[in-house]
């Protein structure tokens, strides 16, 4: 599988497939990596070191800051796989790389490809958007 690169990098982690859209701001606590959105079915789960699979994004334009802060604090996801383009997360990842030299790849996939990634599967991402399930 190959994704379109919104932010490049290599990473590996177990997939956390979100059941519903999530805004990083108001949805993830960057100081713990936990999902805090009171209405989200996966509230309480940690995004740290996971390959976050998000079919559709929503909400706040502050999500770039939350991603960069989660990287700084060491609670960021390993990678983000999106079903629709999101410049807010792409730029959050770009800033984290410039400030902290940590890369969180952000890739855009078709919804059909996204659906082939089961929750908990180990996903390996290579530079240039290569995606392999292990």
């Amino acid at each position, binding site marked *: 599988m190959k994704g379109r690169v919104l932010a490049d990098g290599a990473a590996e982690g177990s997939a956390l497939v979100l059941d519903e859209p999530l805004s990083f701001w108001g949805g993830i606590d960057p100081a713990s990596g936990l999902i805090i959105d*009171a209405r989200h079915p996966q509230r309480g789960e940690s995004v740290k070191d996971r390959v976050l699979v998000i079919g559709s994004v*929503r*909400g706040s*334009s*502050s999500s770039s800051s939350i991603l960069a*802060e989660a990287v*700084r604090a060491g609670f960021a996801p390993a990678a983000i796989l999106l079903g629709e383009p999101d410049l*807010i997360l792409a730029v959050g990842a770009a800033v984290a790389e410039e400030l902290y030299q940590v890369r969180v790849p952000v890739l855009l996939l078709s919804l059909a490809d996204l659906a082939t990634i089961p929750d908990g599967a180990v996903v390996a991402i290579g530079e240039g958007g290569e995606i392999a399930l292990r």
Partner: protein
Amino acid sequence: MLAGGAGDGAAFAMRLVVRAAEALGARRLIPITGAHVDSCLYHGEATIDFVEKLVDGGAQVSVPTTLNVGALDLLHPELWRGDPRTAERGQLLMRHYRSLGCQPTYTCAPYQLAIARPALGEQVAWAESNAIVFCNSVLGARTERYGDFTDIACAVAGRVPDAGLHRTEARRAVLVLRIGPDVPDRLLTDDAFYPVLGIVLGRRAGSRVAVIEGLPQGLSEERLKAIGAAAASSGAVAMFHAVGSTPEAATLEAALQGREPEERAEVGLAELRAARDELTTAAGAAPVGTRIGTVSLGTPHASLAELRAVERELAGARPADGVELLVSTARQLLAEAEEEGLAGRLRAQGVELLVDTCSYIAPVLRPSPLPAMTDSGKWAFYAPGNIGVEVVFGSLRECIRSAVDGRVWRDHDLWGAA
């Protein structure tokens, strides 16, 4: 600029604009006439590290730029109840953005200020989800869904990617939502309807542009603001049309740009009631008589008309003992309210006025184990996660009566016979 000829800060900004252009698939950049920047809200040290890279690199904004809310009320710092160090860092961040040449407006509703109302068709770079929707939908100016970092990067570069909602074709509605025949006329005349409609719009539309049919013509900016703020909370809505109210939807055909939509759907009373009920998180859906500790209004920041409505609904009464009634607004609007005596009268009736920030961002509410009531779909959506309160959603009248009674009061006929 990219090569560093305009300084390291400008080169950094331009790198981010180019990254945004790549993410959006844009082939060129276009000039903008203004920006609204949300990056001035402290979200941890990363936000300081970022702005210091711009400041140290000598960056300055190249277009008139307003600022969104910050972490604290700089005019009333005594309202802060949190960690003093966080207040200090939040204040430093706000100061850094001023030093980049941004105007100290600190409001999430810049469109309520005469200085930040771009004209129909004007290209701008706005952040803050509710402001983005308002800019595109109500002003008819053009912005993509910019976020933290990108907003100030575009303001410094003076350019944005030529993509998305900057282009006419992307502004076409692809979803038609028709208000169902079972929605009572009286509900359409009440403010409480509009944030709830916005929640439904966000769920139905996701990130698509929708057009709403069947609303009263010429809706007020306050009602359009409420729709957009809620829709950008429950979905990734950056633009909607309301036939007969928004400038690119004089008719349904205009909003569709003469083409067929992808989808047509009806929004009926049952769906609206369900969305309304979900906005209340308090135990047992907070039946009439449930004690409340707080009423928070003004998300997005209250307009002068909304401040006057608070006074009108209070009708000389005060909140019950122990109930905090707080309204957030912009410092420039507060100054106008001071001038006409409105602010003084509201304070004399026990209303707290908060500026520069919002009561679900800054720790300003009196600690209370009791639920908080609000007329804002957005506040109801985010406050439980952000500040750990249980929420009761209601109309402005329900909120004010409940504040006065200290207990939830309901206007029983509002949402149709049960």
